[in-house]
């Protein structure tokens, strides 16, 4: 009797484990069904219809009395390439079709940056609200569009968007100069202020050279490129007005970045123009080039052109 008793306990235990895991498996399958119905066709996955059908089958089986092992089996039998075994695999799968860079590190950097911006739509709305004490209809309209874009982005990159730390990124080795510089900046605690400025300048020039719109735009908001960079700009424009030089450089970098692809940021509901919209409600609804024409004087535009030429030449010289 003793061995039978033990066998019974084992079977009961296995039953409990299977019950718990069954719920998780169906949950993930349901989620995948929803996601796959919404994802962009660019996503490099199996035919969506096949997956949806499989999901429907699984869902149908969920409502019937089941032999747990039969229900689990179809999932176990799926090809491993469609069933990421780790978070890293899931991320690499999601970024397999690149938007910003052939370097996985840089691609992930840009996509995570966008995810972070998407996670802060509440803060952006609060910013808009605090400016006038209310959000204008145009701001509400823009934020509506932003949220739709963010939902699409998060659906396309669910694992990337849910990364809560840099651990996974730290495991990836960049294979481009821009990627190496970005990684170097992650560990810049021991750099002096001047060295940080020089590094920021090198990242900017690398972003221009590789035509990376996200990192170029991100860099354009950095006003601390170091005194050498400031001196170079001063000589290029023959100006010693520090604030003016910083402004022209920012305009020039953004101007160039909006000519790179993808240039979603420069559309009216892109993350760059959303920030403009929060700062200046009158600019809501404009794309970047329209905003640029409306907010600069002829002399500034000439200086922006000079700065663009200068930065492009600098990016080739590195």
């Amino acid at each position, binding site marked *: 009797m003793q061995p039978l008793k033990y066998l019974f306990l084992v079977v009961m235990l296995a039953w409990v484990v299977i019950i718990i895991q069954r719920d998780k498996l169906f949950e993930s399958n349901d989620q995948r069904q929803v996601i796959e119905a919404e994802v962009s066709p660019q996503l490099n996955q199996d035919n969506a219809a096949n997956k949806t059908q499989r999901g429907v089958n699984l869902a149908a089986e969920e409502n019937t009395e089941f032999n747990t092992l039969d229900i689990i089996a179809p999932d176990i039998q799926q090809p491993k390439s469609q069933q990421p075994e780790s978070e890293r695999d899931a991320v690499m799968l999601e970024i397999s079709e690149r938007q910003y860079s052939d370097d996985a590190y840089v691609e992930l950097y840009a996509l995570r940056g966008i995810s972070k911006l998407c996670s802060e739509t509440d803060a952006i709305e609060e910013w808009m609200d605090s400016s006038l004490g209310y959000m204008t209809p145009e701001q509400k309209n823009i934020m509506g569009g932003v949220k739709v874009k963010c939902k699409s982005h998060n659906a396309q990159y669910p694992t990337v968007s849910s990364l809560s730390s840099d651990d996974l990124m730290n495991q990836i080795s960049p294979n481009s100069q821009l990627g190496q510089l970005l990684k170097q900046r992650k560990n810049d605690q021991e750099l002096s202020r001047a060295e940080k400025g020089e590094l920021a300048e090198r990242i900017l020039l690398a972003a221009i050279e590789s035509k990376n719109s996200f990192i170029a735009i991100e860099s354009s908001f950095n006003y601390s490129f*170091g005194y050498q960079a400031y001196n170079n700009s001063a000589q290029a424009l023959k100006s*010693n007005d520090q604030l003016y030089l910083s402004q022209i450089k920012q305009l020039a970098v953004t101007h160039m970045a909006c000519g790179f692809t993808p240039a979603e940021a420069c559309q009216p509901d892109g993350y760059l123009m959303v920030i403009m919209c929060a700062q200046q409600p009158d600019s809501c609804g404009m794309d970047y080039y329209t905003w640029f024409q409306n907010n600069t004087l002829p002399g500034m535009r000439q200086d922006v052109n000079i700065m663009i030429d200068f930065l492009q030449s600098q990016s080739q010289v590195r």
Partner: protein
Amino acid sequence: MGLKHLTQLIFIVLLAAVIWFWQSSPDGQKNLTSANTISRQDTEPNSQNAVQPVDAAMQATAATTEWALDEADVVTAKERALTYLDVYRMWRKFSGCQEFLYRLLEEEQFDPVAAFSARIRAEQKATNPQWPSAIQIKAVVEHAASCQYLLRQMQALNLYQKSDDDSLNPTYIQLRDRLRQYLSEMTPKSPKEMAIADALSLAAAWQNAFDAVLEASKGDDTEQPPEVMELEAQVASLEQERRGLMAIDRAMRSQQESDRIHEIWIEVRGLKQQIIQGKKVNLIQRNQAIAAFELINAQMFLKLRSQDPDVFFEVQTALEISQQNLYAFGYSPYKNIGKNKVALPFIEYVSPGEVIKNVIGIQDNQIFARVINHATKIYHCELGADCGPAGQWSPMYCHLGYSFFHEAACQADLVSFYQDAYMSENQWQDVQYVVNVLRQTYAAP
């Protein structure tokens, strides 16, 4: 002793006598005294100040930039009757001497050149290892002298008496208020003086009317609904937690504690916003306050058309609420209109800078600031303001600023400095365009 030896002895004695007489003369001792160390005591040229080692450049500068008053000048200042304009000039000078006077009142031995040298940023020092240059030192020393003279003028007016008991000595702000009070009690006589007095009086009335609008915009908090009381209790609790964390020495504070401080700041800001929005504003009272304000505002805007540079200065800074930040002379995007402080910020207010902004059509505050502030200073110079190297504006670029310093501004008038050593040609053209807009807006008949 032979004749030869006697001659040598006489020669040595005569030489020693010459040296002794030279050392005991006022001019001789001055050259040995550091001209850059300022004591709170009246520094007579033959005072007992300790000799400070001075390098050759500073010594040469000291010889040509004598600033210490002798007794005769102090007596003259006491006896001469100061006009309204004289005291007004003292008042304007006071703000330019703010840093200097603050340090002088707080520190026993204040060296303005050393203080300036310490403010030169490392990056500029690396590119200009010879800084501070003789030109910069000269400007700093002359400025220090003028501020020191201002303090003595205030002594002559019995607005400042040095006490050995530090607790009895006035602070910088107290001195400023005393000078302002003294000016308000004087009687302007000339047309210019009366125009300045009128502008100051109207600016004060304008500020009162502006504050009245903000007061009417706060909202009623005499009857606190329970929800608001609950929010305020949350704020109080969070602030207490934050104070506890802030009390921890920064060096000992963990990252988690620092993050929590930041979290609390964000949370409190949100709660305060909710509290503000929960208050009810009496719109009738607010509109009445705005109507009263508009009457005075219209008078102030008319005075912007004054061709007197001092009237323009007073009215411009008042309307732009930039009296404490002359870098924003012309336009300040960060005016206090009650954002995050009152239930309904005074967004209806349009400052002179914003009027020009709308004329030009630029919407971005930062980009607009790149041209309007330079243009307004140039316009001010065109009205006849003192725009020389030691005037109203150039010292801000030479040595008074808080960013990069520009040696060229130490010897040039503002307009020349702007065109020849500061702005790009394209930037200059844009600024000239804005100056033209200012002329058409303010100076056209």
